[in-house]
């Protein structure tokens, strides 16, 4: 099975994140950029399917030159190769334009199965898999906590608020996964060394036949007009339990009218 995994490089969600004051896009230059955590689960799932059914795993990333670091990290887990879509004109692309570029790149890869993380930790928008399915005219099985492959038939347990839905489709399809689906492997030393030699194909907008004015800040379908840091919460009262902590807690809740 020919599997493509979508990997996004994002600013580390464990550190302070901000927007760049010049154009209100996510500040990436000064951030500690890492592989989007949920994408590691997507890579793991792809590798498991390859191990069970054979095939090839390709990592697809759209991002600035610096995203190479995350691509190598992804490859060190085990995928065979990568495609890096990079172009200065892509800076500031909205989700709609991003989906257009990724869809064009996917057309060149002829994937049976496209696997993505359910969301990225920077935007948390969750729309990409369905946008791609819409553009490519293929099935989307999103929010998976379990994926079963039986020939060309895919079955997913889609996580819902109340439990799950069993959804099915035939390949080609896009599947997005939550972190409940597996436990991503750590790259081995051998994997890290091998990743350095794996092919990474660079694609520009021209290669994909997408014009620069359709993407980036110029072609964005939405715009951030204002960004302000939210005032941090300040600590309130802190008491140490000396036998009546529970009672005191309820007294507080009562003054706030919760009890």
């Amino acid at each position, binding site marked *: 099975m020919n599997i493509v995994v979508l990997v996004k490089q994002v600013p580390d969600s464990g550190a302070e994140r901000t927007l760049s004051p010049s154009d209100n896009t996510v500040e990436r230059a000064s951030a500690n950029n890492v592989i989007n955590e949920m994408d590691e689960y997507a890579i793991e799932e792809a590798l498991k399917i390859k191990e069970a059914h054979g095939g090839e795993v390709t990592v697809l990333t759209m991002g600035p030159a610096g995203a190479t670091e995350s691509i190598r990290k992804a490859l060190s887990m085990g995928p065979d190769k990568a495609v890096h879509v990079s172009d200065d004109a892509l800076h500031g692309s909205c989700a709609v334009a991003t989906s257009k570029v990724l869809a064009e790149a996917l057309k060149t890869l002829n994937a049976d199965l496209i696997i993505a993380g359910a969301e990225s930790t*920077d935007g948390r928008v*969750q*729309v990409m898999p369905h946008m791609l399915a819409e553009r490519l005219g293929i099935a989307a099985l999103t929010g998976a906590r379990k994926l079963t492959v039986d020939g060309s038939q895919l079955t997913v347990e889609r996580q819902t608020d109340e439990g799950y839905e069993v*959804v099915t489709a035939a390949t080609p399809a896009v599947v997005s996964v939550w972190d*409940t689906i597996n436990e991503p492997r750590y790259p081995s030393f051998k994997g890290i060394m091998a990743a350095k030699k794996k092919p990474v194909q660079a694609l520009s907008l021209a290669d994909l036949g997408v014009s620069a004015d359709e993407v980036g800040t110029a072609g964005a*379908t939405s715009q951030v007009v204002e960004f302000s840091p939210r005032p*941090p919460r300040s600590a309130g009262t*802190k008491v*140490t339990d000396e036998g009546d902590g529970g009672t005191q807690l309820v007294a507080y809740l009562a003054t706030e009218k*919760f009890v």
Partner: protein
Amino acid sequence: MAEVFVVVEAGVKKVTLEMLTIARGLGEVSAVVFGEADTAKLGEYGASKVYVATDSAIQDHLVAPKAAVIADLVREKQPAAVLLASTQEGKEIAGRLAVKLDNGLLTDAVEVAADGTATQVVFAGSGIVKSKVTRGLPIVTIRPNSVTPAPEAATPAVEQLTVTVSDADKLTKVVERVVEQKGSRPELTEAGIVVSGGRGVGNADNFKLVEELADLLGGAVGASRAAVDSGFYPHQFQVGQTGKTVSPQLYVALGISGAIQHRAGMQTSKTIVAVNKDAEAPIFELADYGVVGDLFKVVPQAADEIRKRK
């Protein structure tokens, strides 16, 4: 005044009433309902029109048919904006709709101004952004617990939609819907009060304490990632970066240290209360009221005290 669509996926939820309330500031409110329409309730909150789409294709297939129905209706009625709930499905419909209409979209808004500018809380609650759709009409998903629903009576006209779903929208079949956990507790993202447990709760059995306090307060139960990863509580109740974002009136954190991963999902709560045995736990930095102590002593005592006061 132009129409504003409020998409009602399945039943009228609290976020539906919030959307109706926000939509009234943008134009004439039309609800677009999939399945059974609670016309009376929608009218109570100001819907002057209710479009109803009932077709087995909508129930039997994932998301795509709903987006197709809304896209057709948008082309026909040219509304001023489309509001959807910021749930997994709401966002997915919005994404497809944006591609179908070659239109911008904004997700997780907590406020929408009359000109369509949306306010979003970003980066784990550490920033506020104001954004605008610059191509097409505003397609905006609204985060639950953003505004207080306010009734404003209207008598809606009901219009049954003719649904045409193409084969391309029927590629993903829903073969079964399984309810694993459904009790009398409110839904996590919509609850006014959330009581969450973390690693400090110790094991799955001890989560009864968290549930007991939640039930006494009439709240929902949540869990930190550490608690979920340890198997104490199911993932659909996880609050944080890789789980749900909640914004209740009261958030009670029991045995939760307050890692940034967790704060991401709860720090816009109005009031935060924490119980933790570690006085240095970062959760106390954002708690309005914190008790440093053993939750196995503090929580049962608090539960007794609430019972006494009832």
